[in-house]
């Protein structure tokens, strides 16, 4: 039952990863070129048909899969790399200096990804990177808070107290004791954030704040499909479906992991 969630999540992610991996070395057609007449229905040789310009939808979907994973990985990793050390530091110290990161991340929390992306896109232009950075920055507070709370929990354990008393440097305690102990919680958060990042990228691209025409991300494809909703609604189906599958995969993975680590998570959250 518990494993079911995890396995389903992994299967869905697997589909996306395979699409992306194959897309790295081979796509049926060049996704940036016009290889057929516009708006062909699914068939042969264009398995999922062609888009409004006549490019192969499957090829673009495959090429989009890798960008989608890239967006997820970069934005989640970026947020974790910044947020987790801050959270651990804040969790290991006492006094106002411990509060500072929490309050700063509260301020940051006031800027949702969309707001950041709007400002960022205006500042440096909309692109896949803009979307990744905006999503990443907006995800930082979640990691800070979680890492901080989890660190508190771990710090109350006797062996950490012992390590501190015996003079082991703080950094070593953080790396050797705290990090491994809070890793499961962070893993769950990462997986959930991954799903959110994919959705956010789609939203940003829809508004024209995300990936440009050079990158056929799923959000971008959805936006382009908008113009053909009535002639070829199926164009809006594929990227929408892909987004749903990927997001659901990571959400389910998060849930599955949570169930797996359940007893520890319950006391922490």
């Amino acid at each position, binding site marked *: 039952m518990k494993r079911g969630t995890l396995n389903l999540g992994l299967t869905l992610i697997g589909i996306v990863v395979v699409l992306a991996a194959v897309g790295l070395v081979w796509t049926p057609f060049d996704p940036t070129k016009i290889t057929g007449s516009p708006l062909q229905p699914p068939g042969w040789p264009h398995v999922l048909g062609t888009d409004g310009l006549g490019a192969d939808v499957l090829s673009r979907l495959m090429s989009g899969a890798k960008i989608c994973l890239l967006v997820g990985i970069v934005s989640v990793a970026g947020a974790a790399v910044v947020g987790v050390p801050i959270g651990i530091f804040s969790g290991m110290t006492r006094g106002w200096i411990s509060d500072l990161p929490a*309050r700063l991340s509260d301020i940051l929390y006031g800027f949702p990804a969309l707001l950041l992306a709007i400002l960022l896109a205006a500042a440096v232009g909309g692109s896949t990177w803009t979307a990744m950075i905006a999503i990443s920055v907006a995800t930082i507070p979640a990691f800070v808070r979680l890492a901080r709370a989890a660190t508190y929990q771990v710090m109350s354990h006797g062996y950490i107290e012992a390590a501190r008393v015996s003079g082991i440097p703080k950094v070593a305690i953080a790396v050797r004791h705290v990090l491994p102990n809070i890793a499961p919680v962070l893993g769950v958060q990462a997986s959930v954030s991954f799903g959110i990042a994919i959705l956010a990228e789609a939203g940003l691209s829809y508004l024209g704040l995300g990936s440009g025409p050079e990158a056929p991300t799923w959000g971008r494809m959805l936006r382009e499909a908008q113009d053909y909703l009535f002639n070829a609604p199926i164009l809006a189906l594929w990227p*929408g479906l892909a*987004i749903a599958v990927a997001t659901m995969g990571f959400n389910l993975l998060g849930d599955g992991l949570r169930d797996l680590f359940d007893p520890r998570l319950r006391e922490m959250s």
Partner: protein
Amino acid sequence: MTVLRRVGIRLAWFIGSLALASFLIFLITNKLPGNIAQVILGTNASPGEAAALEERLGLTKPFFTRYLDWMAGVLRFDFGVSYYSGEAINPLIASRFEVSAWLVGLGMLLAVVIAIPVGSYAAMRRRHADGVAVSALSQIGLAIPAFWAGIWLVIVFAVNLGWLPAGGYVSWWESPGEWLLHLILPVTSLALVQSSVLSRYVRSAVIDVSHEDYFRTARAVGWSRIGALWRHGMRNIAISLLTVIGLQLATLLVGAILIEQVFALPGLGSALLMAVSRRDLGIVQAIVLLLVWAVLLINFLVDVTYQLVDPRLRRRGELQ
């Protein structure tokens, strides 16, 4: 004493955050490349004309002078006038806020009304097929982009069936009936996703609560599962659920922008997008400031409530 002191410290942080946030907002918006003069003049502009317009709009004054001018206005609740149209910003934001408030408020209300029973059901029946099915449905709801759902709702209900308007907004004061008709689809698409988020939250909270000792006590004195959940479970979920809803509300005011775009609703989010695209900084700053402050305020209120109201949580708070 200690509680008061802790609240005091929190208040100081809060005021500091407000000030810092306002400065950051002003800084960021002023560093945006491109300027209003150019946008107003379009592909017709000559450099001299743009410079003259900038001068006229007061954009050539030093940065700090402008920041202080702006803050002085903000504290008197006067956001100045739009560079773009010369109209006062306050009524503009008020009318935009009205739309967003209805959209987000009703959307959230509908989401809560759906989420509490659905989430509770999924929790209570989590070992049964129907409970799992409900959970799975909410998973799907979470994974579908809200704007995508909105697009399909428009195609089905507005375009094909013609039952409801596809977009636009009619004020309640103009025609309550039209107001409602125009809000049904956008509120529904917002609520579809929000109710998935909330129902999963309710589900896990209900599961947690049903493992609590007081829940077992309630059952032992004769409450049914539903009765115990309603009488003792919901009371305990309420605070954290309200927190989640409150924070969601603030972020949704802008987050609903995708829905506003799909349904051509003149809300805060689309006003922000429009103002940014025109570099109408006065409006951008006003909206961003209000939203960020709203989030900070809600955060602050939640913290203080935890400190004052529920000592059980305070102890938890001390840990953090």
